[in-house]
C-alpha cells in the first residue's frame, strides 16, 4: 500500500503565524515522506522546544517533543535502538547553535544515520525574538536594543569545518527544492544536516520573500559545482551574496557510527528486539 501525504495529517490546528516558514517545511516534509513510501509508523521524529517544536502536534508519526536543545541526542538514542525507523531530529537555530551546540558537533563527528533539520529563522522565536548567532550584528532585538555586540557564527563554515556526511541549505519559500533536499538527506546513509533558511515574519521582518528572491540562488545554477569537494563547498559559502541553496557538500566515504561498532558487527537484530533475560554464567566465571 502506498503512503499518502494525508496519512501524516494530525487532527490539531497549526498555531504558527501567517506567513511562517514552518507551514511550508511541514508540507514539504510530509510530501517527501509519502513519496519515499515511509509510513507514519516507520518514522521517528524528535522535536525541540520552540516554534519549530510546536510542529510536533502537526504531524502524525512516532514523535517525542522533548527538551530545548536536546532533540539531537534524543533522536540518536531512538535511532540506535531501532534502525528500521527513519529518524529525524527537528530543531531551531536557538536550540541547535546555542543550547545544544555540543550535540550538533558530536552527531556530525559520530556520523549517526539520522537527518537533522535546522529551522534557522535567525532568532529565538517562541520566546519572542531574542538574538541568535544568525541574527545580523547590531540589529535591535529583545533585551538588546543595540543588537548583539559580538560576532555571528558562520553556520555553513562551521558545519563544513566538521566534514559532515551531508550538508544542504534550503529556503522555506522554495518548496520544490526543499522537498528534493529532504529526500536526499533522508536517503543519505550518515548524519545529514539540513539548514533551512526559514521565514519568520514576526521576528525577522527583513528576511522577506522579496529579499529571498533577490538574494538566494539554487546551487544548480553554479556551473560544474561538485558537492563532493570540500574545497568547492567552502568557496561557495564564504561569499554570502548570493546565498546558495541545495546540497552544498557530501562525503560518501564516511562509515556510520553503528557500522563501526565491533560489538554490533554480526548482529542481525536491533536493540529493541533483544530485551530478554541474558545468561551471564560465562561472565560470572571471572568472579569465582
Amino acid at each position: 500500500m502506498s503512503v499518502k501525504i494525508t496519512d501524516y495529517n494530525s487532527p490539531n490546528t497549526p498555531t504558527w503565524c501567517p506567513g511562517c516558514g514552518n507551514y511550508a517545511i511541514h508540507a514539504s516534509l510530509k510530501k517527501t515522506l509519502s513519496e519515499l513510501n515511509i509510513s507514519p509508523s516507520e518514522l521517528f521524529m524528535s522535536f525541540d522546544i520552540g516554534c519549530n517544536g510546536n510542529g510536533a502536534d502537526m504531524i502524525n508519526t512516532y514523535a517525542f517533543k522533548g527538551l530545548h536543545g536536546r532533540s539531537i541526542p534524543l533522536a540518536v538514542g531512538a535511532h540506535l535502538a531501532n534502525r528500521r525507523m527513519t529518524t529525524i531530529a527537528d530543531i531551531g537555530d536557538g536550540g541547535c547553535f546555542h543550547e545544544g551546540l555540543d550535540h550538533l558537533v558530536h552527531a556530525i563527528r559520530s556520523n549517526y544515520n539520522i537527518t537533522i533539520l535546522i529551522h534557522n529563522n535567525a532568532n529565538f522565536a517562541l520566546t519572542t525574538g531574542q538574538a541568535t548567532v544568525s541574527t545580523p550584528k547590531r540589529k535591535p532585538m529583545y533585551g538588546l536594543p543595540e543588537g548583539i555586540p559580538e560576532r555571528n557564527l558562520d553556520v555553513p563554515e562551521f558545519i563544513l569545518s566538521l566534514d559532515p556526511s551531508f550538508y544542504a541549505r534550503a529556503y522555506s519559500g522554495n518548496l520544490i527544492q526543499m522537498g528534493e533536499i529532504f529526500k536526499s538527506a533522508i536517503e543519505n546513509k550518515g548524519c545529514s544536516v539540513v539548514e533551512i533558511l526559514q521565514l519568520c515574519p514576526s521576528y525577522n521582518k527583513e528576511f522577506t520573500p522579496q529579499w529571498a528572491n533577490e538574494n538566494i540562488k539554487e546551487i544548480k545554477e553554479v556551473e560544474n559545482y561538485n558537492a563532493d569537494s570540500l574545497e568547492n563547498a567552502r568557496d561557495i559559502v564564504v561569499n554570502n551574496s548570493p546565498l546558495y541553496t541545495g546540497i552544498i557538500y557530501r562525503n560518501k566515504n564516511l562509515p556510520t557510527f553503528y557500522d563501526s561498532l565491533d560489538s554490533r558487527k554480526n548482529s542481525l537484530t536491533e536493540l529493541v528486539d533483544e530485551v530478554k533475560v541474558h545468561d551471564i554464567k560465562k561472565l560470572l566465571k571471572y568472579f569465582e
Partner: protein
Amino acid sequence: MQTQRVSVKFTGASGEGINTIGVLLLRALKKHGLRVFGYREYPSLIKGGVASYQVDFSSKELNSSSRYCNILLAFTSRSLNEYLKDVKENGIIVYDQKDINLTEEQRLYIEKRNISSVFLDSESIALETGGIKIMSNVVMLGFLWRILGLKVETLIEVVLKHFKNKNVDLKAEENCIRAGYTSATFRPEYAKKINTPQKEILSNNNGYVMTGNNAIALGAISAGVRAYYAYPMTPATSIFEYMGENAKETGILVKQAENEITAVQMAMGSMYMGTRALVATSGGGFDLMSETISCAGMSETPLVVILSQRGGASTGLPTWTGASDLNLALKAGHGEFPRAVIATSDAQTAYTLIQKALNIAETYQLPVILLMEKQISESVFNFKKMPRVEKIERGLVEKAEDITQRYQITDTGISPRWIPSKEKKPYLANSDEHSENGSSIEDSEGTIAMANKRLRKLETLAKDLPEPTLYGDRNPDLVFVGWGSVKNAVLDAISSFTKINEIDKNNKINKNNGKVGYLHYEYIHPLKTKILEQLIEQNKRLVLVENNQTGQLGNYIKENIGYEFNEKLLKYDGRPFFVEDILDFLKN
C-alpha cells in the same frame, strides 16, 4: 566464641598497584575458604598521593571494614606515616623501604602497643630471585601469606591466574612469592599474633568476589539492557569499564557520550523506542541530568539512572564515600511528577535492584533513581550465591494495533504503552502537558486530569512495594534506622556485638542496648512507613544512622509522618561507617 575478624591493609603511593595487590590477597583468601571484604582509599589524582587497600576477612560473612588493621604493609614512608595510627595493639607493620626512618614518637607508639615492626627488603629479594623491581609487591604478599600461616600454593595459583594474559614472567612471579614466603625475616611470633580464622567447611563453591559496580553491570546485562551511555565520573565509571570490556561478548552497544545530558537523553530515546538502556553517574553528572528526569516523568518514558554518591557538595571528595544525595534523588527535576528512588547496599542488592528498577521504570512508566555509594560501587563483596534472576516485566499492552490513546486516563494511573513499530499506531510522547492522545494542551480541566493520572501511579506503585526490612533481634530494645551501605557496618556490628555480650558479662555495655535491630530502607520513595510506625508506637529506642551531615532519610520520614529522630549517628568525613563506629555507639 567471638567472630574473629582480621584486617590487613596495604598502603603506598597511589597509582603503584595497591589496588591490584589488595584484590589478589582478597581472591587468595577467598580461594582458601574465608569470607572477605575489600575497601579502597585513594586520592583524586593519578600519581603521588597515598592510597590504601584494606582486606578484612573472617570465617563468617562480613561486609564492612574495621577502622583498624592487624597488619599494615607499607610501601612508602609517607604512607606508613599516614596509616600508622590505624594499626591495632599487638599488630604488625611490614615495610620495605630502606630509607624509612621512624621518628622517636612513632617508635614509642609502636613499642607501647606491642606492635612488631618488620623491615623486609623485598626489592633485593625480588631482584635476587630473578624478578624485576615491581615484583617486590608479590614478595610482600608471600611474606604476609606466611604470617597468616596459609598454604602458599593457593596464593600462587591466584596470582598466576591474574597475570596469565598480561605479558608477565610467570615463573619469576611465582619464585618471588615463594621467596617472600620463605624469607628468613619471618619469626614464628608474628604468626602467633595473628589468629587466622579457621575456614568454614565449604564445598567447591567459595562464592563470588566482585564490586558493587560489577554486580550492577551484571544485573543490567542479565535484565536485557542493550545500550549503555557513559560519561566518566567516579565512582560510577567502572560500570562503563565493565560494559565496554565485555561489549563484544554481550553485544551491548556502549557509547561514550559528549556529556551527561547527552547520555541520559540517548537513554531516554532508546527507552522510548523500546529497548533497555542505562546510564550511571555521580552527583554533578546527575545534576545535569535532572531536566531529563523531569521530562521522563512528564512524558511517562521509562528511565533508570544510577546515582553513585561520593563525599561532599560540588566536587567535594571525588574518590571518597558518602550518602548525601538522597535529597537530590528525591527532588531533582522541576515540576511535580512521580518517580521511584531505590537504594542499594552491597553487591547482591545492586544486582537485584537494577533488575527491579528496570521493571518498575517500564511497568509504571516513570524515572527510577537507583542510589549507590562509592563504598558500594568500589568495595569488593564476597557472597556465596548470586541472587536469583528477576523476571522481566515491561507492562506493555499486548494487542496495541488499534490503540491510539497513549496517555489514556485510568484508575491505576498507568496508561497503555507499546513499542513503536510499523504495525502499530504512532503517537507523540510529549513533554508539554498533553491530552490522552499526546497532543499539547493548556486548559485547566485537561491539565488537572492528566496531572492526577500521573500522580496516581505513585499510589499504585506504593501498594506494590515492600516495607523496609527489620534485621537483628526480633524484639529489639534499640533499632537503628538507615539506608545504603550503613547496613553493612550495622549488621556486622550487631552480629559481633551479640557475641561480645554473651562472653563479656561485666563489661561496660549498657544493658538497655542488649537487643539490637536494624530497619533498612531499600525502597525509599514512595516511602513505606508501617513497620516504622509500629516501632514508634512500641516506644522503641530508634537511632537514625546515615552517611551524611543532616540525616536526609530522617528528614524525609519527618516530612512524611511527622516523626523526628531524637538520636542520630551521622558521619560525613568521606569515610564509610566502620564496625567500630557502631560498636562504640552501643558501648557508650
